[in-house]
């Protein structure tokens, strides 16, 4: 009788102690975006163990996962992706994880701006619509989109770990307040620049979302990808636009060879306004979302004034 009682108690104890043991475990997250890595670290805080697989300064258009990256993705409970066709290596992730982990393409939940598909980039061409347009993947260059992403990540963490819902909500609220303040600052900073001077020439077409939020017109030296060189015809048109629109400065980005941009400045007389973080975090002041965004806005406004 004692043995039976002990057996029943151990089953009961085992049944109640299992969730308690899991409650102490951190949620393993794999992130393929520097911006999403920060969001999930801020919202998940002590409850998550995040592997940021695309590193600051790395070009997400050219990134290829290593076997070690794929192993970390396979071990994760949640895989965070930028979405909007940016991860051209998606099939590799799916093969590696065997669809065990939940993948969340955060950007797919946001309204898309359209851009011309790069004919030299097979992935962009494959996802292009009949008119040759694709979804612009650079959603993180809008603060309001990053706010949406924060809410999406908060909800995903809550679904995986309902016990810590209160913490996720509190952390998300604090991060959203910082983003609100950042947007207010950006609006005031951009207001220093007259609307007829808000012409943004950048080394690849990554700032449409920022332009829409703050009233800029974008002239991109390249299309969506940083992998291809622009055509001579495109460069000639751009030079004409820069001259006729009296653009004072053009901008490079941290992940791109500035050769073509430098050539255009020689032809037009516009100066190099500085380097922008177009595809995610970089080093130094661009190593956080706030730092990256402040750097981009300040560089643009101060150079075009």
């Amino acid at each position, binding site marked *: 009788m004692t043995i039976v009682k002990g057996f029943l108690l151990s089953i009961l104890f085992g049944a109640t102690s299992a969730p308690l043991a899991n409650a102490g475990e951190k949620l393993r997250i794999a992130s393929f975006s520097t911006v999403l890595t920060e969001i999930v670290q801020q919202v998940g805080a002590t409850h998550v163990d995040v592997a940021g697989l695309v590193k600051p300064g790395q070009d997400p258009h050219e990134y290829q996962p290593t076997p070690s990256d794929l192993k970390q993705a396979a071990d994760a409970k949640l895989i965070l992706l930028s979405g909007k066709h940016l991860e051209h290596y998606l099939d590799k992730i799916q093969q590696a994880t065997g669809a065990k982990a939940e993948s969340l393409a955060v950007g797919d939940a946001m309204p898309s701006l359209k851009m011309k598909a790069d004919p030299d980039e097979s992935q962009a061409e494959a996802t292009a619509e009949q008119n040759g347009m694709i979804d612009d993947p650079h959603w993180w260059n809008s603060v309001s989109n990053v706010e949406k992403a924060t809410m999406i990540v908060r909800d995903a963490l809550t679904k995986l770990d309902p016990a810590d819902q209160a913490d996720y909500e509190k952390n998300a609220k604090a991060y959203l307040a910082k983003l609100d303040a950042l947007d*207010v600052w950006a*609006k*005031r900073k*951009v*207001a*220093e*620049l*007259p*609307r*007829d001077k*808000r012409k943004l020439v950048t080394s690849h077409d990554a700032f449409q979302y920022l332009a829409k939020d703050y*009233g800029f017109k974008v002239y991109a030296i390249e299309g969506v990808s940083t992998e291809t060189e622009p055509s001579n015809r495109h460069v000639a048109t751009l030079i004409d636009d*820069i*001259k006729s629109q*009296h*653009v*004072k400065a053009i901008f490079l980005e941290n992940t791109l060879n500035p050769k073509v941009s430098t050539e255009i400045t*020689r*032809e*037009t*007389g*516009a100066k190099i306004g500085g380097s922008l973080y177009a595809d995610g975090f970089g080093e130094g002041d661009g190593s956080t979302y706030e730092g990256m965004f402040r750097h981009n806005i300040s560089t643009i406004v101060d150079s075009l*004034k």
Partner: protein
Amino acid sequence: MRGSPLVRAILVVIALLALLVPLRTLTSRRSETATPLQQADQGSTARKRFRLELTSTTVPFKYQITSGGETIWSGESNSTTVATDAELKFPPEGIDLVVDASWTEKKQTAVRLALIPQDSAMIAQTIWGTTSVSEVLTFQEEK
């Protein structure tokens, strides 16, 4: 050709030297680069005269209006509406004015800024706050 070979050689050298200056001007990149920046200055928007009216439903209130990073109008008022004249650069794309206003009483308050051009219809915007407002307002002239 008549004359000594030395004179002919000197004449050829002088002719080549005379060609050097225009050739250098025509082929140099530097001569092209200076032009657009000069054009940019010429292409700047002309200033336009406006009557500015600021109304707050709570008094007294302090206010500051900023354009292009510079304060164009500030003060304190005991009456609900204050007005001034200002010359502003107003491109077809519109103009951003930063409106900061505050009052001591904690009360839901509407603050309205109106721009009255000399030759077209008034444009106005209203913002709300409890102890202060601080917003960027974009004004565009109706076509």
